[in-house]
């Protein structure tokens, strides 16, 4: 059996009075696209933090590409896109990308940045300060930043929140392209339609543990909604 991209076994995270995750088991194969659904505070962010090596589990085993997530090698295979930008408003697009390129040791830095800026349609604004960008533009630049070092695993933490239709479309397109290239993708979201459109499998986290885990192809958004109808209200308000 080949090494999975991600293997969590009985992972719990609690600290003092706080319970963040309870015995989570999750196996994600290479090239798989998995959506993680759940309410705010259910433990999605903690899960992503543990996968990305920022946070250590209290018990259980986590393996990323067969080794510890906090290994430097693993960290350079990983990219996180969240509603936070991870960009500096007082730098231009080019300066921001160059900064990350240096840290992630991206080869052929200049060409790579040019081509990425082109694919997110920001070439004409590349010398402008990021704090003059619209929300959609910033998010596109965030995507470019995340893809800069050709990550093998993409962690997306509610990336669609507050995006306009254009940006959502572009992000969806880019994600599908990444999937075609064999990248493994984990997405947390409230949006059942996007989740069912993009992913191979869905996982529902409720009260800090995984309650459902199944393939997407023989399920409709409505069926998932039935399994976890509390999401319904959040989609309605979103």
């Amino acid at each position: 059996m080949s090494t999975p991209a991600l293997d969590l076994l009985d992972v719990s995270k609690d600290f003092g009075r706080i319970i963040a995750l309870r015995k989570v088991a999750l196996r994600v194969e290479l090239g798989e696209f998995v959506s993680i659904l759940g309410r705010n505070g259910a433990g999605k962010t903690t899960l992503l933090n543990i996968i990305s090596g920022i946070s250590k589990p209290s018990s259980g085993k986590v393996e990323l590409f067969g080794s510890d997530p906090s290994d430097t090698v693993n960290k350079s295979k990983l990219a996180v896109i969240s509603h936070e930008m991870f960009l500096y408003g007082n730098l231009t697009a080019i300066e921001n990308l160059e900064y990350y390129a240096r840290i992630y040791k991206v080869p052929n830095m200049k060409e790579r940045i040019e081509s990425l800026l082109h694919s997110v349609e920001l070439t004409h604004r590349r010398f402008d300060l990021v704090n003059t960008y619209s929300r959609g533009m910033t998010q596109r630049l965030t995507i470019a930043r995340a893809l800069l070092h050709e990550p093998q695993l993409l962690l997306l933490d509610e990336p669609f929140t507050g995006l306009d239709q254009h940006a959502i479309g572009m992000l969806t397109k880019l994600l599908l392209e990444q999937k075609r290239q064999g990248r493994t993708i984990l997405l947390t979201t409230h949006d059942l339609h996007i989740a069912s459109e993009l992913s191979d499998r869905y996982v529902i986290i409720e009260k800090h543990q995984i309650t459902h885990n199944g393939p997407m192809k023989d399920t409709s958004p409505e069926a998932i909604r039935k399994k976890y109808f509390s999401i319904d209200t959040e989609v309605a308000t979103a």
Partner: protein
Amino acid sequence: MRSRIDKILLTILLIAFLVSLYLVFLWVPQIKASNVSEQIAQKIFYYHVPSAWLGFLAFFIVFVASVAYLWKRERKYELISVASAEIGVLFITLVLITGPIWAKPVWGIWWTWDARLTSSLILWLIYVAFLMLRRYLPDGSKRANLSAVVGILGFVDVPIVYYSIRWWETQHPKAVMASSEGSLAAPMFIAFMFTLATFTLLYIFLMKKRYQLLVLEDQVNKQFKEMELL
């Protein structure tokens, strides 16, 4: 949670403090001093110095617990460091209160920017800041990490703070154990050591109680949390 050990400890403490009061105020011969208030003020030394020693011990425990926490990542070490910091601040507060009470009749002033006094105040500020930091942060492993880092940096700084102001002329009495004739007076020594032991026992008792309380708090909150999750 009131265990038998606690009862025994408390009883010993009560008796020890009564004995200590007897030893200090009645048993030890009066020092020769220019006036009565100075004679009485001298008694404060039996409580002032043990408080200072225990303050240091408490902060040393904060340091050890902080290192242990970063190593093992267990909640209990975080709780030990908090309990010890709180008690340490309490004891250094006692030092800063008893000091001026002694200084007023003897030196004629409450406070002077003397080396020993200043460094004690800085020490107090370091650990008050440590506790303040914890108040401003939400509970969790992040807070535990950050306060452990400060607990380590703070303790490493303590000897440096003392060293940095050493060349100042200090008015603070040095030969604390010398009697009026200049030699070590046996009764003074006995009374002092007895009080020191009593204070150490008090520290242990307070630590035990405070730690138990923090653990209990965690248990209660976790129970609530688990009830929610059902």
